[in-house]
Structures are given as C-alpha cells and as structure tokens.
C-alpha cells in the first residue's frame, strides 16, 4: 500500500474533492457570490471529465474490494459526459428564486450520488457494491423532493425513498443468500466457489435481479417510475432517466458477465422475459401519455428493455454495445429533456398539447427535439440508428432471432409515438403557440453538444473503436 492508491482511485477522489469543495465554498463565500460556486463546480467537473480520458491501466486495491480497469474508467467517463450536460442544463433552474438559496447543496448531493455510481461500478465485493448503490439512491430521494414547495415533488421524493427501500431489501436478502452459498462476498471468491447452478444460487440471483430491476425500472418493477419522473424537477428527472439508469445497466452487465458467467443458463431466460415485457409495456403506455415528462418516463422504460438485449451476448461484444447504446441514449434523451426544460423554464408548460405549432415560433428547438426523438427511435442517419443496430446484431449473434424480431416490432411502435410529438410540433395547428424561447447560454451550449454528439457518435467509427479497444483490455 503506497501512494499508488491516489493514482488508482483518482476518479473517485477527484469527484469527492469537487463535491466537498462545493460545500466548502458555499460556506465561506458571502450571499452575493453564492451563484458563482456553480461556475467553479462546472469548471472543475469539466476538467474532471476531460482528465478521465487520459489513458490509464487501472489496478486493484483493498484486497480486491476495489478494482478499476480501462472498461470501468470508460463507463465512468460516459456517465461524466452525461452529468456535465445535466449540470449545464440545470443552470437556469438553479437560478430560480425558490431554488437559488439551496443550489450549491444540490450540486454537492448530485456529485455525491455520482461518486456512489463510481464505487458501484468499481466494486470488487458486494459490500462496496451495496454501499455504492445506496449512495446513488438515498440522496436521489432528496433531489426528487427538491421543489418541496410543490406537493407533487414531495410525493415523488417519498415514493422514490419507499420503493428504493423495498428494492434494497430484496437485493440485500439476495446478497445474504450468496454469502450463505459461497461463504464470501468478494466477487473473485464467488466466481471460484460457485461453479454449479443450485436452487439456492438461483433464488439469490432472483432477489439480486429483482432489486436491480427496480432501480432500472424494468417491467414489472416499474410502477414508481412515471410518478417519480413526473413529480421531480425536470433536471432531476433527466438525471434519473439517463445517469442512474445508465449506471445500473453498466453494473448489471459487469455482475452478469464477470461474476455470474457460469449461471448464464439461469439468468438469460429471466433477462429475455424482462426485455420482452419491458419493451412492450413501456411502449404501449408511452402512447397514452399527455405529459411530456411521463411520456419520456415510459419511453425510458422501453429503452431499458432494449439495453437488456445487449446482456444476452455474453462476451465483450455485449459490454461494448451496452456502453455504446448508453452513450447515445444519454445524448439523445438529454437533448429531448433539454428542450422540455427550456419550454418549462420559459412557460411552465409540460404537456404534449402545448407543443402544438412549436416549430412556427421556435424552429431550432423543434428541430433539436425532432433529432432527439429520431435518435431515440433509431432512424438513420442519427446515432440512435447505429446503437440499436449494433444491439440487435449482438442479440442476433447470440441466436435470439425471435427477440430481435420482437424488438424491431417495438421499435415501430416507439416510432409511432415519437412521431406523434413531432407531428404536434410541426403539423398540428395552434392559434396560440408557445412564445419564442430564448434560453440561457448554458442550456444552449448543452443542446449544441448533444446535437453534435447525436450526429458524430453514430458516423465516426473511432468512437466505437475506442470503446472496443477499452473493453478488450478488460
């Protein structure tokens, strides 16, 4: 144990230092300058995001309790990009009078939950995995209830807290069964000792998967999603739907591929069933939604169903397509949320009806929304097409032709409701369309980054090759 710990854990340490600095600055600066802490946090986090891309080999610490490899660093980098965009989008919301006096606490809590996701991704045993998961979920309830002057936001907070407590209970019981079966909670011990599928292991795996399915809001564990997404502040909803979801998808991939590969026969059927149920229910319910946040909530449930397809191809290709899909999903979904955020900040409206005739007054925002929705549904030439295509290829290579067929059917259903929003913006007449919106420079630059990303991540093959190179070192 030397100073190597600082270099191996540098991403976690850096992030924790930023979070603590935000708290510290909030305490020492005077009232006038409180808003400037946001700029410091944004700049530091931007540097942190860039620093993550320096090549680094990784290593193990604490007797295998913490391990980081290039692939883990890549996952954290993908999350960093998303969080950076969320921070940019939150600038105008943090300035609103009701939020302004607690904006720095918001940043600190947000960054802490991200550090929980880091620890969860880098966990080498179930204890660290569990603590990371808790850091990533308990403070999230606070973020959901951040607009506590609205009863819907309070409701979202308490709903999330109770649901997450229930799912954590399932998960912990599963972990205790793993300990009973293997006598250890270290991942390397588990892979060594548990070589035969047994009913006990199947039961433990079921509880573990149910707990994670709650967090990933897979059907039938999705009931909390729509209410929490609708009630939370828009920024928090976007954080929920892309960052939390992406992190849990990564962790699910790591656990299934690296810790339980021998039980492939056990969990593949479960993942198959969950994927089919999640895609169908998420899509069918999305059609009925009138509120843009609920709409995006159900669309994100359906997207989680697509992510599961990648889990069925159990070698590196599976991990590669999941990271690629999550990266593009983060960019496209954040673009959609960014436009919704701009509309909400300017007019307080969040129904799909309100978007009628949006193109007339806000052509650029309408185009960005259209691009984002095309990317979410997977229309070429935007990136969403490529990520879905690779995902389907991976599932087909693993021999799941029927599942790919079902997924294609679902893509068509999804296209229908995404186009409904596009139709509202471009075709539906509206005598009183929304006024022309001029959003602040942070939101505009975030939207700019997402649009560039939506085009380039699909077309530029170096992106995919970079992910491939990182994963192959795993």
């Amino acid at each position, binding site marked *: 144990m030397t100073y190597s710990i600082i270099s191996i854990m540098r991403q976690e340490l850096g992030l924790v230092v930023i979070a603590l600095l935000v708290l510290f600055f909030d305490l020492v600066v005077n009232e006038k300058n409180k808003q400037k802490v946001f700029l410091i946090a944004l700049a530091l986090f931007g540097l942190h995001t860039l620093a993550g891309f320096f090549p680094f080999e990784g290593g193990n*610490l604490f007797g295998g309790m913490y391990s980081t490899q290039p692939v883990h660093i890549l996952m954290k980098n993908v999350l960093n990009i998303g969080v950076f965009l969320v921070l940019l989008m939150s600038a105008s919301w943090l300035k609103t009078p009701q939020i302004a006096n607690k904006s720095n606490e918001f940043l600190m*809590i947000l960054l802490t939950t991200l550090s929980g996701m880091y620890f969860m991704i880098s966990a080498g045993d179930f204890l*660290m995995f569990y603590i990371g998961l808790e850091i990533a979920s308990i*403070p999230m309830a606070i973020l959901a209830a951040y607009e*506590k002057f609205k*009863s819907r936001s309070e409701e979202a907070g308490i709903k999330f807290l109770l649901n997450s407590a229930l799912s954590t209970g399932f998960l912990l019981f599963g972990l205790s069964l793993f300990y009973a079966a293997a006598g250890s909670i270290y991942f390397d011990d588990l892979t060594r000792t548990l070589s035969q599928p047994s*009913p006990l292991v199947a039961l433990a795996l079921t509880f573990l998967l149910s707990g994670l399915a709650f967090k990933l809001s897979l059907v039938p564990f999705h009931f909390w999603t729509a209410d929490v997404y609708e009630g939370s502040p828009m920024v928090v909803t976007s954080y929920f739907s892309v960052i939390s979801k992406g992190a849990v998808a990564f962790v699910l991939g790591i656990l299934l591929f690296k810790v339980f590969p021998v039980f492939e026969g056990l969990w593949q059927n479960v993942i198959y069933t969950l994927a089919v149920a999640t895609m169908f229910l998420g899509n069918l319910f999305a059609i009925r939604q009138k509120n843009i946040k609920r709409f995006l909530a159900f669309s994100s449930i359906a997207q989680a169903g697509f992510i599961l397809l990648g889990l069925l191809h159990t070698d590196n290709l599976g991990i590669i397509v999941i990271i690629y899909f999550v990266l593009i999903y983060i960019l496209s979904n954040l673009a959609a949320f960014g436009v919704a955020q701009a509309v909400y900040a300017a007019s307080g409206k969040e129904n799909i009806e309100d978007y009628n005739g949006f193109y007339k007054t806000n052509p650029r925002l309408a185009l960005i929304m259209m691009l984002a929705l095309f990317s979410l549904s997977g229309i070429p030439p935007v990136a969403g097409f490529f990520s879905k295509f690779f995902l389907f290829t991976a599932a087909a290579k693993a021999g799941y032709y029927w599942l790919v067929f079902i997924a294609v059917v679902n893509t068509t259903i999804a296209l229908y409701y995404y186009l409904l929003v596009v139709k509202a913006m471009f075709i539906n007449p509206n005598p009183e369309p929304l006024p022309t919106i001029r959003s602040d420079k942070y939101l505009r630059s975030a939207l700019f980054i997402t649009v560039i990303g939506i085009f380039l991540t699909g077309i530029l093959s170096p992106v995919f090759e970079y992910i491939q190179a990182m994963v192959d070192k795993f």
Partner: protein
Amino acid sequence: MMSITFHQAVFYFFSAIIVIFSILTVTSKRILRAATFLLFVLLGTAAFYFILNYAFMGALQITLYAGGIVVLIIFSILLTSHVGERFEPIGWGKMIASALVSLIGAGFTLYVLLNADFIPTQAPLPDASVKNIGTALLSYERNGFVLPFEVVSLLLLAAIVGAIVIARKEPHDTENPNNE
C-alpha cells in the same frame, strides 16, 4: 435424535418472538404501537448475536437500533402525528392478496433454503473481540473494511446536507397554496 438442546430452545424462543412481533408491527392499526412492537423485533435480533457469542454486535444492535433508531422513530411520530390516530382499515381483498403473496414467497424461499446443501466451513471461528473488530475496520488488506467505512461517511454527509435542505423553513414554502 429429536432431543432439542438448550441452545436450540433459546433460538426457537427468540425466533418466535421475532416472527410474532414482526407480524404485529405491520398489522397494528396504531403507529406508536407498531414502533413499540418493532423494538421487540430488534431486541430479539440482538439476542441472536448473543447466542452466536458475538457480544459486540449484540451490544451494538441494542444501543443503535433498539436504543437509538426506535427512539428516533417514536420522536418523529410524536412530532408529526397524533398518537391516538389510527390507520384506515385495509380492505379484505388487499389483506388476503398480500397475505397470499407473502405466504407463497416465504414458503418458496423456505423450501429452497431447507433443501440447499450448505457446506460447513472448516475455518476456525474468528476471534470477534473488540480489538480484532477495530483492526479489521481499519485494515486495507483483504477482509479489511477501511474503504466501506470511509465511503459510508460520504452517504451520511449527503444525507445530512439533504435532510437540512428538506427540513429547513423557507419563505417560499408558505407562499404556495399547494403546500399543506
């Protein structure tokens, strides 16, 4: 073969206490009673640690859970609601459905657990003295816990900051008619 040792008898006694009071906790109509029943569940769990000769954990369980957390729960009940308040009665349909789900779930889990062949460990019982626990808590070797020990403090910090933000009175709170 069927003779029950003293150890087992004590185990079953405390198990019965835990099961009965757990059911009472979730079925009780009064929230303060539910909290009191929970206290007995936590005390019963502490008894398990003493049976296993893990006195340190037993003491922790009593001081932290039975002593600290239940008192916290009771305080927050007394501060936020009327003691005499009763929950709305739950409909029979819901009651039967949830009882069925719990029974099937518990039965299935029990069936699997009773049929599982656990491998008895050959390793000698670890010395659970306070000194060893303290060393393990700050050890960075395998089976050391310094990383989780430190990382949990992050969770606590975020939770404390968040709790202050949520609980703090603000001028905007009263302006909004939506807020009760």
